């Protein structure tokens, strides 16, 4: 294989304004005919100094900024950040707040995976229909988020030691209704795409990721489990109240794009199970730890790493406190950025058209990749 960008290889710059690159992502692809021989990702177009801003803002002041990391899943971003600050300062969270967090995180997973399937299908050329069906369901969940937190996507809902707004019985009833109807959408969606011969031809044996490479590259989330590695932080760490719920971890066999697609479809069914249990078990009580001050919050000197199983993978925040009102160091471990590192390995030997499908199956959001 030639690595020279000379007459034999054609260099194509895909992005940053390409409609299928999920934002401002750019790939320099070297092609031999239509086969990808080299792929160099270029990013940073959406870089906005998130970590440095976090070091200059107060601990609470960084919370709304975390919404803007992965703007599809602001609830789980909030939770990961709140979890690491709670670890740093040793804050207890009331029981009802933990249940609410689980409910909101699983609702986030549902809407993230639903829109993932829609986007992946539109990357394959099914413009419109699957994405609109997915967004119809997503909109119901976003309406729930809006009526609880005040904003559809920039929720800013979690606080250190709890949650900001009480979810009343009416809200929980609406959530229950949406959760109960969600499997109906899943059945319909699976009938729409999963047996489709074009989908199967475009995804099976495309972009295979071996378990060894996945572990060595630090891949996490559904992409890792699609390669057959049983690693889910909800089970490993047991943060929140996840050990109280009964749910299974779907695992893939081949690590190809089809497995990554199926992984999301199966995970949504497990999320529905968790949601049903959580909505049945939730009890009235306080939603925030009254000892935590909103103003002049200063955790003790120390460092902490809080991580959760976000919809895209392991999302972690690493904080070092020097006892002041701002973190001394604020570091994000973004799942979609680290999952993107194996893109070249996945794409080599496939055609240009497959690159878009493989990129879509990684499930990236540029707000999180570039930060």
């Amino acid at each position, binding site marked *: 294989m030639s690595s020279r960008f000379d007459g034999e290889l054609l260099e194509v710059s895909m992005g940053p304004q390409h409609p299928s690159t999920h934002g401002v992502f750019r790939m320099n692809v070297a092609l031999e005919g239509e086969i990808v021989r080299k792929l160099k990702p270029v990013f940073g177009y959406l870089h906005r100094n998130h970590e440095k801003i976090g070091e200059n803002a107060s601990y609470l002041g960084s919370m709304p900024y975390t919404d803007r990391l992965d703007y599809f899943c602001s609830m789980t971003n909030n939770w990961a950040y709140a979890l690491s600050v709670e670890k740093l300062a040793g804050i207890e969270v009331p029981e009802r707040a933990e249940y609410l967090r689980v409910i909101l995180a699983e609702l986030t997973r549902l809407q993230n995976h639903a829109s993932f399937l829609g986007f992946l299908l539109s990357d394959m050329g099914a413009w419109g*229909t699957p994405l609109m069906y997915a967004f119809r369901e997503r909109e119901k969940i976003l309406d729930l988020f809006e009526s609880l937190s*005040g904003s559809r996507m920039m929720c800013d809902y979690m*606080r250190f030691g709890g949650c900001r707004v009480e979810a009343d019985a009416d809200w929980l009833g609406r959530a229950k209704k949406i959760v109960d109807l969600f499997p109906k959408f899943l059945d319909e969606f699976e009938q729409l795409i*999963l047996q489709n011969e074009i989908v199967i031809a475009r995804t099976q044996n495309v972009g295979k990721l071996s378990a060894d490479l996945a572990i060595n590259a630090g891949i996490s989330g559904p992409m890792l489990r699609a390669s057959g590695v049983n690693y889910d932080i909800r089970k490993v760490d047991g943060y929140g109240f996840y050990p109280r719920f009964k749910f299974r971890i779907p695992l893939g066999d081949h690590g190809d794009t089809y497995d990554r697609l199926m992984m999301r479809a199966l995970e949504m069914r497990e999320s529905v199970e968790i949601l049903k249990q959580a909505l049945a078990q939730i009890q009235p009580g306080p939603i925030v730890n009254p000892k935590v001050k909103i103003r002049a919050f200063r955790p003790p000197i120390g460092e902490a790493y809080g991580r959760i199983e976000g919809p895209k993978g392991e999302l972690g925040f690493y904080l070092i406190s020097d006892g002041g009102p701002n973190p001394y160091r604020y570091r994000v471990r973004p799942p979609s950025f680290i999952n993107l590192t194996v893109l070249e390995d996945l794409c080599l030997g496939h055609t240009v058209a497959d690159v878009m499908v493989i990129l879509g199956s990684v499930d990236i959001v540029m707000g999180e990749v570039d930060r």
Partner: protein
Amino acid sequence: MIGTGILKGMAVTLRNFAGSYFEKDRLITVQYPEERNPLPENYRNFPILIYDTDDAEAGLRCVACKICEKECPPQCIYIIKSDDKKPDYMGKPQFYPKVFDIDISVCMSCQICVEVCPFEAIKMDKDFELSKRERFDALLFRKEELSKSNEYYHRIHPVEAAAVDANLAEAAAAAEAKKKAAAAAAAAAAKPTPATSNATTTSAPGSTSAPAKAPPESSSPTASKQ
């Protein structure tokens, strides 16, 4: 057989298309400018300043303590404190903001200013149709544009506003009771001693210290609410 999967998918789209004529939950598009979904109670957009009574100048709850300016993550609030004091709606002399600007183009609607305000003075608006024709300072809202009456606040957030009013009334009653107790204590302290000019000066700080303690009192119900 090749093609059955595609046909099954087509059946789903056909069912959705036909269903959109009969089933209400399949027809979800709202024709926005003509039709509008009601906004939820908790919906938030940009901050506004609340004033009591009819006078936007005199009734403004803000006392220019600058806490929101300090806590605002994107630093979009700009306050200049007044040099003189004027009586607020409860009759206490307070500072007031000479300048209170919020750059709406910088604000990210995070609600932290609302959470840290100890005086229930800054709240979130629901008005989202804010496009402007001017290029420069039309989105820099001055104090006059930000000031909204308590009735307006009740109209946009009825449940929250009622809770805030109850908290404020409670705090005012507590402050009033404290003032009366302090005055009674001062009178009781003044009685045994001969009625000289000295006694009136000792009672004066006692009566003024009660309103000075009022802000922490009024902030504690807010903290528990959150």
